[in-house]
């Protein structure tokens, strides 16, 4: 156990966590903004057209507004919670504040690596790296890597997978 002070009840795993680019907050914010526009817009339309009884419609609008604001506020923290580590034998990945998740994937289990770029991420020069194993549930997707970083990380992972496959 690497955590000497058990004051926290969080799952913390020691080591040198690499963060993702702070610019990725921008991508998240755009996503939240889109969500907010849709949610608030939809509830607004409903309440203006009197689809719901009058107070209920405005309550829904307020709820959508609050949710969007909260998501705006936590977006930077959510991005900061994303991290990864290249350990000797496996890739560690973590994310999430409320629902925290840490995944360990031995390099040799790699089936393929995807690099995706969404429109906003591409504008900011970011890419997303997806590590695919034979298990669909693995779900290791590292977002918010600078383009060059993503490519070099991919190459590093592929070569690590090769050497680990040859047998230690």
């Amino acid at each position, binding site marked *: *156990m*690497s*955590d000497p002070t*058990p004051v926290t*009840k*969080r*799952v*913390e*795993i020691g080591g040198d966590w690499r963060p993702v680019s702070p610019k990725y907050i921008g991508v998240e914010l755009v996503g939240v903004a889109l969500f907010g526009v849709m949610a608030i817009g939809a509830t607004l339309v409903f309440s203006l057209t009197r689809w719901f009884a009058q107070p209920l419609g405005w309550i829904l609008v307020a709820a959508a507004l609050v949710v969007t604001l909260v998501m705006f506020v936590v977006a930077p923290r959510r991005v900061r919670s994303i991290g990864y580590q290249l350990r000797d*034998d*496996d890739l560690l990945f973590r994310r999430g504040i*409320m*629902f*925290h*998740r*840490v*995944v*360990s*994937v*031995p*390099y*040799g*289990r*790699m*089936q393929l690596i995807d690099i995706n770029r969404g429109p906003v991420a591409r504008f900011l020069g970011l890419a997303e790296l997806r590590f695919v*194993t*034979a*298990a*669909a*549930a*693995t779900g*290791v997707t590292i977002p918010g890597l600078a383009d060059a970083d993503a490519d070099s990380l991919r190459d590093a992972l592929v070569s690590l*997978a090769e050497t*680990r*496959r*040859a*047998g*230690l």
Partner: protein
Amino acid sequence: MTESTPPPLPGGGDWLRLHPATPLLKGGIALIAVIGFVLANVRERLLEMFVGGPDSGDLLEELNRRGHLGWAIGIVLGGLLLGVVAFYLSWRMHTYRINDEAVEVRSGILFRTHRQARLDRIQGIAITRPFIARLFGAARLELSVAGQDAKVQLAYLRSGDVDRLRHDILLLASARRAEEAAGTPAPDASGSAGIIGRRVTELLAPELDPSEAPPESVVRISPLRLAGSLLASGATVFAIAGIVALSVLAASGRELGFVFLIVPAILGSAGYFARKVTRSLRFSIASTPDGVRVGYGLLTISNDTLPPGRIHAIEVYQPLLWRPFGWWAIRINRAGHASSGSGSQPATTMLPVGTRADVDKVLSLVLPGLASADTRHLILAGMVSSGPTPGFAVDFIPAPRRGRWLRPFSWRRTGYALAGDTVLLRKGLVWRQLVAVPAARIQSLRIEQGPLERALDLCSLTLDTVAGPVSATLSVLDRAGSITAFDAISRAATMAGALEDGSRDPQPLRPENDR
């Protein structure tokens, strides 16, 4: 089979054709039915002509009189002829070849396909003998490799050849090219009786050739126990509850229009039972030199051979209703999607119902490493007991007592153990489960914590394997202990994977390096 070269290639590596009855079995039956129907009708017409017609039964004249009828018959016959020709051509063009590296299949008339499966990627070989095909002495062979729709189907082959063909393929796939392949020619009963006699012999032959597996490794299920297990299943309770509810409603004289909505459900559950029964009758699991062989089926016989190291997770479970009888069932996760031919799932059932002794046997077949003396008690403990097992070095690490807030019943049983290169998870008080995952098959390891679990200083641990009925998740574990276990298991996973890739020699098939 050729017996010339030391590594015996089936068919000498040439392109081979399938069973001549293939077109018939693949939907050709319908064609024959249509032909028969048409012929019968025409004969009726002819009879009518001969008997009831005003003229003296001149066929041409009659056809002339009803000119459109003649056209219709001509068109139908032409279509049928075309169908027959197409079926024949598709049979001619459908060839397969087996060589050192791969199994290849070429098929199609207009759109040609050429599919090739590498031998070292084979996840399992399934043989299915549908009832009608058995009448023709034919069988279907399916090689499954990992991936969606990734299988090579050889349908249909001569029934007497397929077992040998599978043996050859697995032999070719494995590193060893033993001489044993040259010996033991395929048993041929053709000398004794004619073709009818041979068919009858094949139909009546035992599902598992006794020479293929040592009898002490064979697990069978008596039909009585199977029936009992089905009666004592949740589906039965559900059905009875449904019937009771219906009769109460009927007695109370309400409107019963909705009953017709339930009819499909009843039909569905009947189908479920029927499928379950047919899939479990004459079930046998045995260890053969090529791997674990699972066979089942009364009319449609299937069997499935899993080469070693192709099982990704194993679950021994006991529904509540089975507990008084001491019955257990075993299912697995596996990579290939085999035998999807007749709408069936990949065969993931390793034991439909069995006693604890059967479970022991099956586990020692599918996980030979686990059945050693120092981990044996773990299986037993994992199956029945809760809390610690005193007196043994390796034991389940239990969930802490505070887990009862989230899992009021099962927290006492929840626990994990790392036994050799297998991770064992024990869970479920009502529905007892014991999950075993070979460390070399773990794809990734997850540790998760939601807000409730954080408040209680707990977390959950998941071993990700390939998709299947078994899910290896434990939920209310101590946080600190889980972090230690997380490290230990991920190390074990890496080591086991690396070991298997590099230097495990007796592994007959080169394990698919990263599975």
